[in-house]
């Protein structure tokens, strides 16, 4: 399920593994991996999709620096919650690349990281339904008092 701050929302983005699916299924909002994007950029941009891009925590933003305008969503997939690279990457997207659309966290993330994620520019997270309460609890415990701007 997708949680955006304190609201659960629908996820229109469906993950696509290869380009054949693209043609067959005529989906409106699709989520593609960075590898697929790099390999099939031309073909993908021919269709009018709402595009979401999934970047794993060990990948860099280098290859898409000039493509950002294509994406309605950038989703960082944490390989493990201990790998904090996406915190820096999200911040860079916002601050240096001025990316205004949705940034989402997925993969192995913990509710304990929710406030950090939001503060680094993430809008939403993909979570398991059974943990919803814990995620909301961290939001509730946050009093908005921080040492950093």
């Amino acid at each position, binding site marked *: 399920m997708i949680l955006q701050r304190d609201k659960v929302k629908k996820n229109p983005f469906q993950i696509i593994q290869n380009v054949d699916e693209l043609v067959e299924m005529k989906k409106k909002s699709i989520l593609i991996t960075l590898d697929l994007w790099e390999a099939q950029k031309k073909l993908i941009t021919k269709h009018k999709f709402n595009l979401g891009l999934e970047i794993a925590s*060990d990948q*860099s933003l280098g290859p898409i620096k000039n493509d950002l305008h294509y994406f309605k969503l950038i989703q960082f997939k944490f390989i493990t*919650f*201990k*790998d*904090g*690279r996406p*915190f*820096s*990457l999200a*911040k*860079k997207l916002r*601050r*240096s690349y001025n990316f205004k659309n949705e940034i989402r966290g997925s993969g192995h993330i*913990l509710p*304990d*990281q929710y*406030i*950090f*994620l939001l*503060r*680094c520019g993430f809008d939403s997270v993909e979570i398991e339904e059974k*943990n919803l309460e*814990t995620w909301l*609890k*961290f939001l509730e*415990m*946050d*009093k908005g*008092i*921080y*040492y*950093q*701007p």
Partner: protein
Amino acid sequence: MYKYTEQDKKIVKNRTKEFKFQVERRINGDLTEEEFKPLRLMNGLYLQLHAYMLRVAIPYGELSDIQLNKLAEIADKYDKGYGHFTTRQNIQFNWPKLLDVPDILSELAEVEMHAIQTSGNCIRNVSCDHLAGINSEEVEDPRPWCEIIRKWSTFHPEFSFLPRKFKIAVTGSEKDRAAIKVHDIGLKIVKKLGTIGFEVFVGGGQGRSPYVAKKINDFLEKKDLLNYLEAILSVYNELGRRDNIYKARIKILVNELGQEKIKELVDEKFEELSDKSLELNQNEINNIFNFFKLPIEKKTNSKVPIHSDKEYNHWLQQNVINHKIRGHSIVVISLKPPGKPPGDATSSQMRELSKISKDFSYGEIRVTHEQNLILPHILNSNLYELWSRLKKLGLSTPNFGLITDTICCPGLDYCALATARSIPISQKISNHFKEYSVQEKIGDLKIKISGCINACGHHHVGNIGILGLDKNGEESYQITLGGSATEKASIGQIVGPSFSTENLIPAIERILKTYEENKKKNEDFLSAFNRLGIDKFKEDLYK
């Protein structure tokens, strides 16, 4: 001394609540141990060989009498009646129960203390010159800068899941007592053309692959400090290695990329990311500096009491330093009495010291990174009475800076990673050389002992470094010579094959003999070593 603002109080209180919730989730199984580990580490909670260990932060080594008294209480109530002061100016309790930890944290919060970021892969407690603000040669007091960095680095949303731990140290003097060149970032306050700023060093560290930090900025303006630190951390967070824990520190990145490249990347990031809201204005800086005003009102002609007691005179000579305000002294309390583990203090010692600091030192105590304590502001005429009270507590050992003032990690007695014991070695040394006259004759000498290659006992930067190894099930000790963590930082060189526990003291004796036979007048061990070279020592030691 710094006092918590409302903001600090709320943040610490909230953290305590959050941690309680995390412990509950661990206990009911919502968090796996793998998930809980980084979370508890960020709260200073380690799992040691026999039990949990809680490391409490002492920001830049400053404590009030009230805080020290609380630490004594905690040692009695939740531990075995003692605490251990560490090489990063913190204190560790070795036996708390997991379920007690939230309560300990609440009690600490009452006296403006916490265990936040004393371990884990985040920015750790910032450390500092223990003579900050009280020595006359410094450019500026580094403590306010440590406080500014403490705030910025605490629960930093971007830098709480770094590749590895990250340590920052600050000094305001030419003479480096904070070991800045063996930290991930070392900051040295300097004055150029009348303006004060920072020299910035990165990539120093010990562990398996020791490095002396490289300078990447000759002069950083004060206002840019936090933006520049963000730039360094951001480069590290993105590029630091995560595939191998032993290659994850920034020192490896700096070494792989080279000094020029890392400087270029940081400068680029600094240009790109500099955030106006992180720029420090003079008002903010002044506000923090106001907390650190000297409590002493004026200079006096107060004289040091004269007594014939030999021990008292040794102590005066060895453990008492001039304060920058005339008529006052700085007193070093050695936590290295003969035969005791370095850095340990019992609850009754802490309680009494709390009173003593209130009576004589404006309620201020400091912790040094060499695991001693300091009473920073003593009126000269009080020195004899102070000494008498310290003596009763077993805290008047006159060995500051001498051979028995060793640094030592917990080693095999406590640590799950150890390959050999280190505390008993330190005890052997302190017993063997306990006579003051013997130590005085040897002069300034730093021995540092680690129980494994991770080097928590800083053996790489000991003038004599001792590393405990496991050789087919037998403890054996490798000796390095010539290390230093001062402004002339250097990594010690291995002298040769290692020694058994029995042969270690004779080996040290032999090394000292080489020094004794070859030294020039007033030449200390390190200078003599640098002049003579390792071969001379090796030749004598193994012939």
